[in-house]
């Protein structure tokens, strides 16, 4: 474990990413302390330019709402939605991938056909349709993002399982008489965790982008101040107040970037192939 940490810390990008992400997480957690009033509340003169007024360092939007509060609460939404949807997607993906990969044959064939069907509709288009159909709210958004993002996990896990299943230590586990469930969860899954973790970290990033795209298209939860919503709302004011869309855009960019950097770091630190090369 410490070797993992050492390797991770050696990756400067990953450390920087981790720093940024922690900042975002802290802001998200303490948003209600930083900004006790709702981000929807009109608190100041409309369209204050950012960095011009000490009371509203990030300026105000067209209704006089504090953009700083929006950014802080937006961090909550982004992190909440992306984490939940990733967890759901990973659970579905691991479940389906593990069963398909372990049992193979007809089961695998069937599950992979199902996966294929989900992959045949373009992700974003499918998310848009799902959210629109189940009316946009936080649940439908989480569900939609999960539904469009589990297939790659399932494929990955299946692949890992297919190859791990042939590994000798798994055969050994069969030979000593372990039951399939114990082999799946006790033997194979822990060894497939590294790529799953890496993939999941990237999925969080993608989920943030998807959520923001949905909000931008007007398919966000209307009661949650999200970054995508802020860009969508500020879009009409792009020329009068470009910073109003640039700021939340930068927030998305930085957060996604930081998660990607962490993902790279995790990949370097966890990927057994690189480990072999770097280690001995």
């Amino acid at each position, binding site marked *: 474990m410490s070797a993992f940490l050492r390797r991770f810390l050696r990756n400067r990008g990953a450390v920087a990413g981790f720093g940024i992400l922690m900042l975002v997480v802290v802001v998200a957690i303490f948003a209600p302390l930083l900004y006790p009033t709702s981000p929807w509340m009109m608190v100041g003169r409309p369209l204050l330019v950012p960095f011009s007024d000490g009371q509203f360092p990030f300026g105000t939007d067209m209704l006089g709402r504090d953009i700083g509060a929006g950014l802080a609460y937006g961090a909550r939404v982004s992190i909440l939605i992306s984490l939940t949807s990733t967890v759901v997607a990973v659970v579905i993906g691991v479940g389906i991938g593990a069963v398909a990969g372990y049992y193979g044959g007809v089961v695998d064939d069937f599950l992979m056909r199902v996966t294929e069907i989900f992959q045949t509709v373009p992700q974003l288009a499918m998310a848009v349709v799902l959210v629109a159909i189940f009316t946009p709210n936080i649940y439908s958004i989480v569900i939609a993002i999960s539904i469009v993002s589990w297939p790659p996990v399932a494929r990955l896990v299946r692949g890992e399982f297919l190859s791990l299943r042939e*590994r*000798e*230590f798994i*055969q*050994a*586990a*069969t*030979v*000593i*008489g*372990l*039951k*399939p469930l*114990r082999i799946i969860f006790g*033997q194979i899954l*822990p*060894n497939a965790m590294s790529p799953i973790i890496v993939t999941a970290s990237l999925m969080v990033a993608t989920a943030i982008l998807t959520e923001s795209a949905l909000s931008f298209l007007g398919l966000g939860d209307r009661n949650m101040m999200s970054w995508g919503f802020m860009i969508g709302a500020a879009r009409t004011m792009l020329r009068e107040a470009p910073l109003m869309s640039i700021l939340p855009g930068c927030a998305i960019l930085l957060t996604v970037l930081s998660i990607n950097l962490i993902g790279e770091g995790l990949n370097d630190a966890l990927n057994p192939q690189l480990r072999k090369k*770097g*280690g*001995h």
Partner: protein
Amino acid sequence: MTQTDTILEISGLGVPLPSVGDRSHAITDVSLTLKRGEILCVVGESGSGKSISANTVMGLLPPGMSPDAGSVTFKGRSVLGLGEREMEALRGADISMIFQEPMSALNPTMKVGQQIMEVMEEHNRPADATARQKRMLELLGVVGLPDPESLQHVYPFRLSGGQRQRIVIAMALALEPSILIADEPTTALDVTTQAQILQLIRDIQASMGMAVLFITHDFGVVADIADRVAVMEKGRLVEMGTRDEVLDNPQHPYTRRLLAAVPHGRPRTDPVPKGAPILKVENLTKTYVTAGGFGRARRVVHAVQDVSFSLARGETLGIVGESGSGKSSIGKCLLKLQDIDGGRILFDGSDIAPLSPSAFRPMRRRIQMIFQDPFASLNPRHSIARILTEGPVAHGVPQSRAMDRARELMDLVQLDRSALERYPNEFSGGQRQRIGIARALALDPELIVADESVSALDVSVQAQVLELLDHIQRSTGVSMIFITHDLRVAAQICHNIGVMHQGRLVEYGPPAEILVNPSQEYTRRLIAAIPGRAQPH
């Protein structure tokens, strides 16, 4: 030794390792000379630095590695200082190289003829394209490949390992270089193929008169091919001399240890224990069908065809064969790691073949397996204690008793008991294989299938593990099926040997009989191919 005699001189060469490992240098202070027309074997176990030395000569060290001491002189010219362009001119033309893995040494997306021609094009020798074409066809013939005319248009994946190695050799010979560096060129090949390739290298060397730097870990190969021998250990050159000097009168203890570890191949002679057979295999058949893809035909491989044998309690049966002969499939079928397509497997009188996985599970503790790859056969995420106790616990043994047993087993396989708390990556290959053996023994099985259980180990370790297995078998009286490609190893520890060829059991009998008086042509070839047996030239 005159200056004109020496074509390559390595002196005081040192290459540091990039990251801080258990040693600072891959090689330290290595000095060698290679003379015209000789075959110099560099011998050593994995990690001894023999390949690094060769790659330094070629200027093909991995990025981040470069020599920090010593010199390499080729025909009086220092090689280390040369620019990339000059090295390129040298490579392939004056010094060429063949590698260990024929399966991956050829570009999979390029026809083999083209790949051979490339070296000539690169050096523009001969300058004329049709001449190059002609030379390429000629080379294919020289390396003993049939029908060069059509073979040139084939992609590497169509060829067997031996054929590919011939292509690589053809490539290396194209411009008649002064030096051929061969980096374990036969290690990945079957014995019979290995014998052919060795013969080929020897013939070519003789006819072209070039110098060969031959890297190997196998003293059998050394005996077959070397003029002179250099022995390396952990990055240092420990001994050098003519073949006979080194083989017959080794000076350095390491050399002596290595030589002692070479399987002697003396047949086991004690009688097969009497009694009812524990295992009877009748007409076992296994066929693999690979799915087709776009323009890819479905393939049917008859891995095991109609194989029958029986095994008495306390007997060790060797199943010997080359890769693809079906020997490993038999092991997998016996352990029901794969289904069979026909025949019966009578274990202690009852047919286990038709049992469902869950019905068979309780019986599993009676049949155990020792796997081939010590690095892949232990779950890297589990402690040794867990690895050893998981099986017994799954079969209802209380955890504490299983732990006690695990400690005993550690003694039995000669590992420290404290090792139980550690994880597989903290152990060497040989130690891991001991742990694998302990795992199999933990369930007190009646039958152990050992599938190539020593072939991935360095020879010195191999000898120790083999000894351990032999000891355990003799002391516990467990029945054992020992699957190997190495006839010598099988002969040493088996009561009976079955020889597999193309899915069929072609020969069966006690080792002494088989080695001395094989009834099948294939077995004879196999015996003849054992390295170290061929008569020196």
